């Protein structure tokens, strides 16, 4: 490959900003200046689709209505574990208004067992809510009525829905054989080929960056202080405002799918594989998505069902899950039990860190939590053992920083406790053990803003309502998806269009792309039309793992640069000069040395020989290469501070303020980044204080599969959130931008927990931190008096 050497901005403005020379492919555009010197990138640009979202003209999957479309509903098992002896769908099939009925021949969710436990022609039921069959009818009510006519003969089996029970010897087995599962693009990790003992699979000793290191025994022997604690986190469900759903128009094998998906690509590929069709015959459209948070990476069993029902009926079929189905079957963040032990020297130097964890993703895999403990701090001796525990509950899914949110809750409380044991300021301890430059700058910035002093003695406030402050950090790798392509088109009237199959999960990907292309072409963001979320366009990354901005903006800029080069050649001819002497700025091509000689972008486009010229680019490797696979050298670090009030008489916790200090490389759209961080912090508070999937151990049902008793934070629960964004140039790509979705959500719960400790002087090691847990920790709860 032909290469060239270019100088790029490198470092953190106000701290260590300089330049670095990198060898890059010769096709790469010149270095982009720092944001201060740019016109569109790094600014608060209004979302290009803001109006459509506000006035309701944005079409979400739930809004799609095709001529002749049917509505699908699924029969779900209301018992948690059973063999199916027979299924009688005759009454449903004959019900007026029903066009198709389909029975699943296997499960399309969770882990894949090597074989079914019985010789039944139907898959075993392994959780309450598992879809068994589906009906397509003229409207959802008729479909539901027909579903209720399906007769299933079950042979119920013993079941287990809590992780602690499932781990016990002799517990009912969810799977009879070893299982495996393909990881999604959401960032959860699943190690292949591990064996199960009972319901417990593992251990996995791996993490994003590899396996164990050093010698734990030696490390702990060298330690002056050892702290060991057990932490527990709950199951959290995703609760996207738009539930999961699809419309499938099978159309004799020329399939069109409208999907609320985080991955048009995966949805297409899975559908093509399931129905044995060429990828070219499956088109997936996802223009607007009402949230996903990791649970919408796959086609889903409902997508498969809609496919079969559409194929059988010859009509388009829509299946939108209702809220209850979304809770019980469409994904969740696995819970965790973490036993974590750290050893340190008197000066804070870590000598050993050991982590043991169990987590249940229900009938699925992906409950590991070891990444953050492995990656965040310098510690020569480290080992994690992570076990997945199967329970008869709905499958887990990637969820906004999979594993790291759970892991940070434990690790960051442990480090806080270690600091106290060492009589060190928790931030000073981190200065000692944290090698990350960006987090160091973030800590300094945060302490300045808060006028941080070493936290007061825990629980020392007078009166029943005690205030506390806490801090916690986040780590998230810079993942890049190289399979990210963008096409840019210019038309003869000067119109500019961007096309990619990448979808906008709601974070503002459309606007980001418009900004990057506008910057390169000397236009305004609103001059650029962005068409995305359609597999007819060049394939883009899944919206997961915070990869989108870092993966899709460089090819967008590179494609725009190719267009610019072509237009510059025409401009050079028109202005009778050399292409090197042309500058494109503010909508004009002009002579570098004589700016008054110019031609507007529009006028120049009119001189194109063809109606439109197009250019496509794909994501190049990171400048300077990758640290590992497609993980970049820099990281997405952040530091969050929380202030809380705790009423020690009622146990009520209120988060008063969160200061979130973040970095995401070169920021593209400040307003959208802040919006993401606000969302991440709110989600973190929800995780710390409110959300909890309640399973009834006796019946195997989720008791709060709604938004009434499953508690999300509403307006009064949302504190003052102050966001500080640190620009950081890593010189890794033509835009040097990265995502922010996951890191925004990692540190919050731990920061809140540390603040609660600072307020009341007792550690709460299990979330959500409910009034009951606070009162129990303060020994105020009356002892149980149950007959």
């Amino acid at each position, binding site marked *: 490959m032909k290469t060239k050497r270019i100088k790029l901005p490198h470092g953190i403005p106000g701290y260590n900003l300089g330049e670095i020379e990198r060898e890059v492919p010769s096709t790469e555009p010149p270095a982009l200046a720092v944001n201060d010197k740019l016109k569109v990138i790094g600014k608060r640009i209004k979302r290009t689709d803001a109006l459509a979202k506000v006035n309701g003209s944005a079409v979400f999957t739930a809004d799609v209505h095709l001529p002749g479309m049917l509505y699908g509903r699924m029969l779900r098992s209301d018992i948690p574990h059973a063999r199916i002896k027979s299924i009688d769908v005759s009454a449903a099939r004959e019900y007026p208004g029903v066009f198709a009925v389909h029975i699943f021949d296997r499960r399309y969710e969770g882990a894949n067992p090597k074989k079914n436990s019985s010789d039944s022609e139907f898959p075993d039921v392994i959780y309450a809510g598992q879809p068994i069959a589906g009906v397509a009818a003229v409207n959802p*009510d008729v479909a539901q009525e027909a579903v209720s006519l399906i007769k299933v003969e079950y042979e119920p089996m013993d079941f287990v829905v809590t992780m602690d029970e499932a781990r016990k010897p002799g517990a009912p087995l969810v799977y009879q054989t070893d299982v495996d599962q393909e990881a999604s693009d959401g960032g959860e990790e699943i190690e292949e080929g591990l064996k199960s003992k009972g319901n417990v699979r593992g251990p996995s000793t791996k993490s994003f960056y590899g396996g164990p290191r050093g010698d734990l025994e030696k490390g702990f022997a060298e330690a002056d202080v050892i702290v060991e604690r057990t932490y527990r986190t709950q199951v959290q469900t995703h609760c996207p405002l738009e539930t999961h759903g699809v419309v499938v128009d099978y159309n004799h094998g020329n399939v069109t799918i409208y999907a609320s998906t985080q991955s048009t690509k995966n949805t297409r590929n899975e559908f093509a594989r399931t129905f044995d069709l060429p990828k070219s015959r499956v088109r997936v459209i996802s223009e607007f998505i009402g949230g996903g948070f990791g649970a919408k990476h796959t086609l889903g069993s409902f997508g498969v069902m809609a496919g079969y029902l559409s194929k059988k009926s010859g009509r388009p079929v829509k299946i939108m899950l209702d809220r209850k189905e979304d809770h019980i079957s469409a994904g969740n963040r696995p819970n965790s039990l973490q036993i974590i032990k750290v050893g340190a020297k008197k000066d804070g130097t870590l000598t050993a860190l050991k982590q043991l964890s169990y987590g249940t993703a229900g009938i699925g895999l992906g409950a590991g939590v070891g990444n953050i403990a492995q990656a965040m701090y310098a510690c020569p001796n480290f080992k994690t053992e992570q076990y997945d525990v199967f329970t008869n509950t709905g499958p887990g899914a990637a969820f906004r920083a999979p594993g790291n949110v759970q892991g940070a809750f434990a690790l960051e409380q442990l480090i806080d406790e270690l600091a106290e044991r060492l009589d060190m300021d928790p931030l000073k301890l981190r200065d000692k053990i944290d090698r990350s430059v960006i987090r160091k700058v973030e800590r300094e910035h945060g302490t300045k803003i808060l006028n941080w002093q070493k936290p007061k003695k825990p629980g020392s406030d007078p009166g029943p309502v005690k205030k506390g402050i806490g801090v916690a950090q986040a780590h998230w790798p810079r993942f890049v998806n190289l399979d990210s392509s963008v096409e840019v088109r210019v038309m003869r009237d000067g119109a500019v269009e961007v096309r990619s199959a990448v979808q906008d999960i709601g974070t503002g990907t459309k606007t980001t792309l418009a900004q990057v292309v506008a910057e390169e072409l000397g236009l305004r963001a609103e001059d650029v039309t962005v068409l995305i979320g359609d597999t007819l366009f060049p394939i883009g990354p899944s919206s997961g793992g915070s990869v989108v901005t870092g993966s899709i903006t460089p090819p967008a800029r590179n494609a725009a640069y190719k267009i610019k080069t072509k237009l510059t050649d025409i401009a050079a001819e028109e202005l009778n000069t050399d292409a090197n002497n042309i500058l494109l700025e503010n909508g004009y091509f002009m002579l570098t040395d004589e700016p008054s000689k110019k031609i507007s972008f529009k006028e120049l486009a009119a001189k194109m020989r063809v109606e439109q010229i197009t250019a496509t680019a794909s994501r190049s490797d990171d400048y300077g290469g990758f640290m590992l696979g497609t993980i970049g050298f820099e990281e997405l670090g952040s530091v969050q501070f929380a202030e809380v009030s705790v009423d020690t008489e009622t*146990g009520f916790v209120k988060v008063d303020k969160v200061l979130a200090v973040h970095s995401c490389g070169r920021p593209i759209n400040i307003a959208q980044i802040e919006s993401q961080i606000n969302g991440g912090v709110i989600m973190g508070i929800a995780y710390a204080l409110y959300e909890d999937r309640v399973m009834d151990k006796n019946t195997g049902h989720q008791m709060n599969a709604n938004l009434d008793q499953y*508690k999300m934070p509403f307006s009064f629960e949302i504190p003052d959130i102050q966001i500080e964004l640190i620009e950081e140039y890593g010189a890794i790509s033509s835009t040097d931008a990265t995502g922010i979705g996951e890191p925004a959500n990692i540190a919050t719960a731990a920061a809140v927990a540390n603040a609660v400790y600072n307020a009341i002087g007792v550690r709460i090691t299990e979330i959500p931190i*409910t009034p009951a847990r606070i*009162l129990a920790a303060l020994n*105020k709860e009356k002892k*149980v008096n149950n007959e």
Partner: protein
Amino acid sequence: MNKFSWYDAASIEEAQKEVNATVSQTIQPDSPENAAVFKASGIDLLDLMKEGLSGPAKVVGIRNIPGLDEISFDPEKGLRVGAMVTLSQISGDDRIKANYLALHQAASRAATPQIRNMATLGGNLAQRTHCWYFRSKELVCFRKGSSTCFAHVGENENHAIMSYGYCVSIHSSSLATALMAFDSIVEIKDKDGKIRLVPIKNFFVLPTVDRTRENILEPGELMTAVILPAPKRNTVSYYIKMGSRKSQDWPMAEVAVVAELSGNVCKSVNVALGAAAPVPLISKLANDSITGKTITEATAAEAGRAAMQIALPLSENGYKIPVFQTIIKRALLAVV
């Protein structure tokens, strides 16, 4: 949701002629076929229908019946709140705020602004329990006719801590708690057009008396108003709700206090507890503890402890005891 026919009644008589069942009867396994029920704003009824718990054949709307949505106040006679008055009307009424503060507070803290704009006093008092087992279509609990109270041995963090029998559900109306403290009267019109005046403490039904219902209303009987006695001189009230969230949430504990004072001395008092039992309760123990005493941090705390003497928490809800103790203390302190 099942198919049903809709009847928009123009008068109480017309509505009563159409209705043949209570909503509670439609939830029972032997639910009458062709059940026709009242619908006020439908906040709870439509939830029950969407959740697949209630399937009436006919729904009789009473929102367009004139005269049921009025509030009248006479300092001598007291307050009359029509059954179709919305929670927003109550929380926005200055006369109620000035004379019946606890009722104002209870109405203002219930649900969300949007729900309060629709929800009516009558519907709020007649709503069914939000016990999550009762609300699960798949589970037939004791209240729905089986022999099993799932909460008793299951997830009972939200459930009753006193005065329960086998069913440990709690009553869901916050307004009821305030109205109990005010010794309110429920006005009921029976099918013959006769008016019955029922003290609110006799309006609610414990599951130990009849597990299939939560109030005394018979099919076709319509609650038309709630009447609160005239405020006595030196009578003050206060209401506190503790939920796990400050925004829309069901209470984990709530208290309404109505106290007649002489200086800081409590001459008489009514301490009403919500989310403690299958019905809203007056805590006689708290009343007796504080009556005749000067209200201080110590005596108020003592009243809170007294109220909880009869508490018998379940496996997961022992935390309610200190919460109740605290909010009873704070509500008593708030009136002086």
